[in-house]
Each structure stands twice: as C-alpha cells, then as structure tokens.
C-alpha cells in the first residue's frame, strides 16, 4: 500500500452503485429515502455526497453496508463491489445478517460515524476496540494485534500511542475520539472508507485536522472515500467528485469544479448560491450608514466573570459594548464560554462579578447584574433571547398562538388586541396567521425558529441575544433567517448580540465581532477588520481552518495553527 502502487491503479472503479432504492414503509405509505441513486467510487478518489437534512445521504451510505435502520430495506438496484483480485459481489443481494456481508463490513468497506461520543464504547480500552476488527476478520494473535494497533494509532497521529492504547474513550477529546474511529476503520486496510459527517460534531479547527488526516491516509492507502456532508465548504476542500442529493434523488453528479463553478441543476445552483451568499457581508448592511462610534452604548459590559460550581471559569473578565441598532457578533468554538456569556447578560446564570449596564428606553442606565427581581422583569422585556434549538425552545403542548402570546399576556394584553397582535407578529416573521392553532410539531425547523423570533420581538424589545440562532438550520434556510433578523432590526431599531461558532454567519450579519477563547475575549473590532486582518493568533487559526467553498482555492491544508494554546496547557486536547 504505497502511494506509487495506488497511482498505478487509479481510476479503477471499486464500488459501482446502480439505481439504488431504499424505502421505509410508514403508516401513511412508502417513504422513499433513497430513490434511484447511482454512482461510481474509484480507487484513490473522494466522492462527496452532499445534501440537506433528510435528503437520504446517510441512508445511501448505510445501504451499502446493509445497516439501514428498521423498518427500512433495500428495494432494488445493485451495489457492485470489485475486489483487488477481480472478483465482484453485489452487496444489495446479500442477507443483511448473513456471513458474507459481515465479511465485507470493516474488512473491505469501513465506516466512520458522525458522533464520536456515542460511536465508541466507553467500557472497552481503545486498543481492544481498534483491534476488534482484526480479531474478527483475521484472527491474529494478541501480540500481533497490539503491534498493528500501535501502528494505526501512530498513523492517525495520536500522541504517545503506547499509553493511549490502554486508555478509555472518555479520556479523549472529540477530535481524538474521531481519530480513534478512523484508526478502527483503517485496521483491516479497507478498499472503501465511508465517512458519514465525521466532522459535523467537531469544532472548526478540529475539523480541519481531521479532514487533513483523512486526505493524507487516503493518499497513502489508496482508498476510495465516500464522504457524506452537508457543508459545501468541506466538499470544496476535499472532493474529487460530488453527488448532490435532494429528497432521495440525485440532482446532480460531477467533478467538484463543475458543481461549484458551472452547476447544471437548479437545486445545485440554489445550494451553491446560498453558500456563496454567506461568503460576504449582506447587501443591506453594505449600504447602511455606520453607527457613530460616540453613540452612548445600549449595553455596556465590564469585567464580567462567571464560574460554574464545578470550578470552571466559563466567562473570564469579559468587557464589551453594544450600540443601539448594531449587531455584535460573538464567535468562538465549543467551550469558549460564548453561550454562558449570553445567558449571563440575561441573568439566566448569575455572574459573580462585573457590571452589565443596560440603557433603558428613558435614558437611565441600570446594572442588570445587581437588579432586583422586579427591575429584572422589566429589563427582560427590553432584552430578549432567541434560542439555538428550534425543537426544545417551544413547548410542544402549546399552539403557536399560545407560544407567541405568552410574553404579551404576561405584559397584561388580552382579548381581541392580543389576537390581532399575534396575527401581526406571525405575518411579520413570515408565518401564515391561519396556522395559529397548529402545534410546533407541524412546522419545519426554519418555521419553528420564526416562531421563536416572533416570541422574542412580541414585546417590542430593544436588544435581542441570539444564541446560535441559525446553527440547527440547513444552509439554504440560514441566510433567510439572517435576512429576516436584519429586516426586523431595521423595522424596529433592534440591536443584536449574535452568538455563533460560524464565521460566515457572523461576517454576513454583524457590524462588529468579538472572538472568545476559553472564557476571554481575545480580539474585538469591526467585522471587516477582524475577518480580513486578524490581530490575534487564535483568530487567524480560527479563520484559516474554515473550509473555503471554492475548490480552486483549497485553504485548510495550509492553515495557521494556534500554538500558543499548546504552551498554555499540559496535554494537547484538540485535534
């Protein structure tokens, strides 16, 4: 398995999927999760399957290994696996519980899953888990097995493999676990690696490391990689070929260049369009006059700190200001304390020190951190929140009208006025007022988020804390939601504190941005300044790790790594 060898047999088709159909029988009929999908997987090449949630991309991957969740089953089509010795097998014809397909799983086709937290067993040492495939498929001796596992750990660049092999998965970070997963997949030298959103649960810097690793291993092993993702940036960075899926059907298939720069299909064009749209500042914000820097701030936070009972200092001496009509972006990776900080501003958590001066409508300022309960109640009418999770933030037992009306009712509105106001709000956020009697379960994620926005603006607030408000949405909905928020900002003179891990969303919408890292703000300034000329090394590392949705300009390979962090902590936790 040398690079030279893989070069000679390049372009050889290993897996040929033809007219694959996987259906799920439901109470109301047949759900066609995969409906006539065909593609070829070639040695040494990466095929990206891209699509939004529910497009059937994961089911396609699972169909290949016959591990589709019940009651789904393969209805038709063929999955032709060609081995190195020239023999072929149609995987679609095999018994899902039979010996033959088990011989293929892990040995000839390996898979890595999205969730590194739950796809590894917490009760076995990682050495045993990686070696399991070797034991099952080759039955090699314990000693040889250990040797091979150590070699694999070295390949996936886990530090100190000799000690790591005897540790448990919970002792590793998410990125490290995903490396263990990859080592497990590589154990039997598979010809095909299926990666089902392997970086979605990871931070962007960790994602860059893992993508890099997969690509390097693919080159050295000469594997074919089937990479499933919803992120067009990732596609542009790693794909050779792309398959665009929508509702179980293939919309377009072609080389990555063509998909990004000359898409043939309308759906693909729309998808690329919505990604590219988020690559620059929103047009409505380009033409808007700047907010004068000497405007008295709406929110003036000084030296805010908050420590959890566990001793974790989640917010560490944070100071920031928000001017009226402005959007302040807070960007950072998971665990940077950005969500905690947002919640401290509303006193959902109790910060232990600092001041949060909020300028009331009458011009007086009040410190939210020390406000009494009745003052806090008033402040919370002017300062509202939009939540990340569009499912958990709406009570499933209330109708849309009840949900939106709740803050109004508590403010004393009732009867006809209340009904009219709810209808007006629903219209304002782009929902049909006729849907008022429906329950949240009848709405899609984007619509639910609109309900959440309607609830937030119901009492005419002046500041809204939006905590990852678009993270749970598909990319095509993301810009719509941001456009809606900016429209409301202009209509109502709102200010936003927009918390996100996604730089493109921040760049699209925010006037100024603050970068958080380990509870501290490491850099703050105008969005253009921070994005184009980052001053802090961490910001540079963060920006350079973001996949660029242009296959002609692949960047993460040459990314900037933030090394100061390694010096500050004993063990490299990420990557």
């Amino acid at each position, binding site marked *: 398995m040398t690079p030279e060898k893989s070069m000679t047999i390049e372009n050889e088709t290993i897996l040929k999927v033809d007219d694959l159909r996987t259906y799920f029988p439901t109470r109301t009929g047949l759900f066609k999760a995969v409906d006539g999908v065909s593609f070829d997987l070639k040695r040494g090449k990466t095929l990206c399957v891209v699509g939004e949630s529910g497009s059937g991309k994961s089911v396609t991957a699972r169909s290949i290994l016959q591990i589709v969740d019940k009651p789904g089953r393969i209805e038709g089509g063929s999955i032709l696996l060609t081995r190195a010795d020239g023999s072929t097998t149609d995987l679609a014809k095999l018994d899902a519980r039979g010996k033959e397909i088990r011989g293929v799983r892990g040995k000839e086709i390996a898979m890595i899953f999205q969730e590194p937290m739950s796809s590894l067993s917490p009760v076995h040492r990682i050495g045993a888990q990686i070696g399991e495939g070797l034991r099952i498929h080759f039955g090699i001796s314990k000693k040889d097995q250990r040797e091979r596992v150590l070699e694999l750990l070295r390949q996936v660049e886990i530090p100190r493999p000799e000690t790591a092999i005897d540790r448990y998965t919970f002792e590793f970070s998410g990125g490290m676990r995903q490396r263990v997963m990859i080592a497990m997949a590589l154990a039997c030298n598979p010809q095909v690696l299926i990666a089902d959103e392997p970086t979605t649960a990871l931070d962007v810097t960790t994602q860059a490391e893992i993508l890099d690793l997969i690509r390097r291993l693919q080159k050295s092993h000469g594997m074919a990689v089937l990479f499933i993702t919803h992120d067009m940036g990732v596609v542009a960075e790693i794909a050779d070929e792309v398959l665009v899926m929508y509702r179980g059907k293939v919309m377009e298939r072609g080389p990555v260049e063509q998909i990004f720069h000359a898409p043939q299909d309308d759906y693909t064009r729309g998808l690329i369009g919505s990604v590219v749209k988020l690559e620059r500042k929103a047009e409505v914000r380009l033409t808007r006059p700047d907010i004068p820097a000497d405007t008295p701030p709406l929110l003036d936070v000084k030296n805010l700190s908050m420590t959890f009972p566990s001793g974790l200092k989640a917010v560490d001496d944070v100071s920031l200001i928000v001017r009226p009509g402005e959007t302040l972006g807070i960007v950072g990776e998971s665990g940077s304390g950005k969500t905690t900080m947002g919640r401290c501003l509303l006193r959902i958590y109790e910060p232990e020190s600092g001041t949060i001066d909020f300028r009331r409508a009458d011009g007086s300022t009040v410190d939210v951190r020390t406000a009494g309960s009745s003052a806090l109640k008033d402040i919370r009418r002017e300062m*509202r929140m939009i939540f990340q999770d569009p499912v*958990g933030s709406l009570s499933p037992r209330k109708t849309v009208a009840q949900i939106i009306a*709740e803050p109004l009712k*508590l403010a004393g509105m009732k009867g006809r006025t209340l009904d009219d106001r709810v209808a007006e709000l629903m219209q304002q956020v782009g929902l049909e007022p006729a*849907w008022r009697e429906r329950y949240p379960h009848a709405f899609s994620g984007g619509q639910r988020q609109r309900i959440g926005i309607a609830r937030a603006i119901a009492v005419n607030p002046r500041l809204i804390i939006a905590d990852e408000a678009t993270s749970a949405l598909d990319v095509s909905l993301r810009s719509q939601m941001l456009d809606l928020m900016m429209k409301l900002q202009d209509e109502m003179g709102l200010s936003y504190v927009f918390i996100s891990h996604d730089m493109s969303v921040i760049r699209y919408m925010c006037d100024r941005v603050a970068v958080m890292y380990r509870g501290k703000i490491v850099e703050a300034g105008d969005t253009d300044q921070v994005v184009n000329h980052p001053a802090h090394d961490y910001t540079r590392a963060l920006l350079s790790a973001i996949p660029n949705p242009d296959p002609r300009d692949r960047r993460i390979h040459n990314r900037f790594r933030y090394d100061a962090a390694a010096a500050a902590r004993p063990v490299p936790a990420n990557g």
Partner: protein
Amino acid sequence: MTDITHLPPETGPSLDLRARDIAVAGQWKLFWLKFKKHRIALVSLVVISCMYLIAIFADFIAPFDPNATNARFTYAPPQGISLMLDGSFRPHVSQLKMTLNTESMRREFAPDPQKPVSVGFFVPSNPYNLLGFIPMQTKLFGLTDPKVGDSLYLFGADRLGRDIFSRVVHGAQISLSIGLVGVFLSLILGVTIGGISGFFGGWTDVVIQRFIELLRSIPTIPLWMGLAAAIPVGWPPLRTYFVITLIVSLIGWTSLAREVRGKFLSMRNEDFVTAARLDGMSEIGIIFNHLVPSFMSHIIATLTLAIPSMILAETALSFLGIGLQPPIISWGVLLQEAQNIRAVSQAPWLLFTPAAAIVISVLSLNFLGDGLRDAADPYEALT
C-alpha cells in the same frame, strides 16, 4: 427569500387531511392516537372499564344479596345455564337435588333436568337502593319466578349457601376502589413531596430522598402487618377500610414522588421553560403552565401501574386476616374464606372465582399502564 426562491420553499405543514388534523392536535389527542396503536392496552381498557362498571352497579348486577344465607345449599356447585328448553328459547338452570352421602357425611348435589328453573333478564327483586339512593326493585338477571328449592349459583355457593358470584361482584366495589383511593392518596403525597423535592433541590431534596429510601427499605408485609395490627378491633368497617387504604398507599407514593422529582429536574432546564422565565412568568406559573402539563401524561401512566399493586396489597392483607374483616366483602376477604383444605378440595370455586377476578383486573391494569406509558410522550415520533 431572495435569490434562492427557486429552491423548494420551506415546506409548510403538508396539506393532506390527516396531516392537517395532526397539525392542530393537542397533547391529549396525540396521546390517544399513539395509545390506540397498542392493541392489548386497548382491550385492557375495555376490560377494566367493564369491571369498574360492574363494581359501580354491583347491586343491580348481582342477582342476590351477598350476605343472604341459605342452609339448604351449603357448598352448592356452579350451575350452568342452558338456553333452549323444549325446542324454544328459554334460558334456565336445572334445580339442584341434594342427597346426603351417609358414608362421607357430605351433601352431594346433582342437577335434576326434570325440574327446569327459568332465568331471565330484569327480574323483580326485593327493594334496594342502587348506589345508595336510587330505589330499585329490579335486578339485571335472576330467577323469573323464585320458589322454594330453586337456586341460581353461577359460580357456586359457600359454607353458608351464599352466592359466590354476587359476593365477587360486591367484592369488586371494595377491591377496585381501594386501588383508586390508595392511588389518589399516593398522587397527592407523591406530587406534593416530589414537587417540593425537585423544585427546591438542595437540602430539602436530600432529606426527602433519603426518607424515601428509608421507607422503601422496610419490608412491606411486616410493615403493613404491624400497622394493621394497630387498628382497634372495635372500629366500624368503614373506618377500617380507610385506614387500610392509608396503609397500602404509604409505600405507593414514593415511586411517584421520584418520578415527579425526576421530571421536575429535567424539565427545569428545558429551553422553553427558560423562555417562559424570561417572559416574566412566575415560578408558580411555570409549574402549572409548563411543568405540570408536560408530565401529566407520565403521572397518569405511573398511577395506572400503581393501582394493581394496591389491589394486591389489600388482597394480601385481607388474606392474612389482618386487613378487612367480614362482614365487609372484598376479594381478599373472599380468598381468606377459601383458606382451608376443605374449600380447596371440595369447593374449588370458592378459591378460583375471586382469584380469577384479581388476576384479570391486575393483568388488565398492567397492560393498560404499559400502553399509557408508551403513549406518555407523544412527541418523540413526531419531532
């Protein structure tokens, strides 16, 4: 929706009729839709409803006074009803002919086909008050024209010639209601104490949880025995009944309290509860507007599963002779009367009839509770 309008629009709630129904379906409707899919639970619901109806209208359904004795028919066996007589539809039983076996000194009964006794619906009876206040003179079924020597023992008679069927029907009143009353007491205790524990947390929570663990660690039967033994013998039957329900619900509330506490703890940090708090809703408002509706269905399921254990507890106590005492009739009391070798060998119906009633009701309640529990969170499948 700007330059991507050609994308399929954010699909609204789909428009076929069923989906539209679901879209406006509240939690109880969804609950019912999901419950309906659980076949056994549905059947159990019907069975249990019938049993409770029988208990409520026991006076009307039981053909005889459960305490009416008849020395002539000591240990009379069950009589089968024949539907046809002389080629026409005339439901009847055969009169029992009693002979004294001089060797074993036992009464032996044999049906005498020559003497049919006709049976009918809505037969006149001695005046009684249905539910204690509706004066009635009709029974659901019975002998149309009772004469001396006629009898109708569907499930046989006991030592004093009392009709077992009537006694089991009347026993249902006590046995099934003790479960309900007990569960009601458990509900009040469990929700209040569990709610306090989950809501206040901290020391209150620790004290309450340790107390619950202490209670649960005491072996139940000796505890009940000790408490039941403390009931003065001279107390009127009704008061004894209430004390017994208190005793059996003493343990029952603990599991409910834990359930409620767990729900409280998990719900408190849900985003929609935080949202309500930010809307300015008071803690009490949050509890009654958001928390209680969220775990109501879970509580109902837990309660349903708690009823059988109450019924069994009463039965166990009465069977041991320390629960209810005659003349009160409960299934446990009936079992206790069958507690001798003679009953088992010569009159097994004394044992099997109340036992069957207990098994059917407990099984049905358990299946019903399973179905309710599965349906308790109707949103899992939808979201």
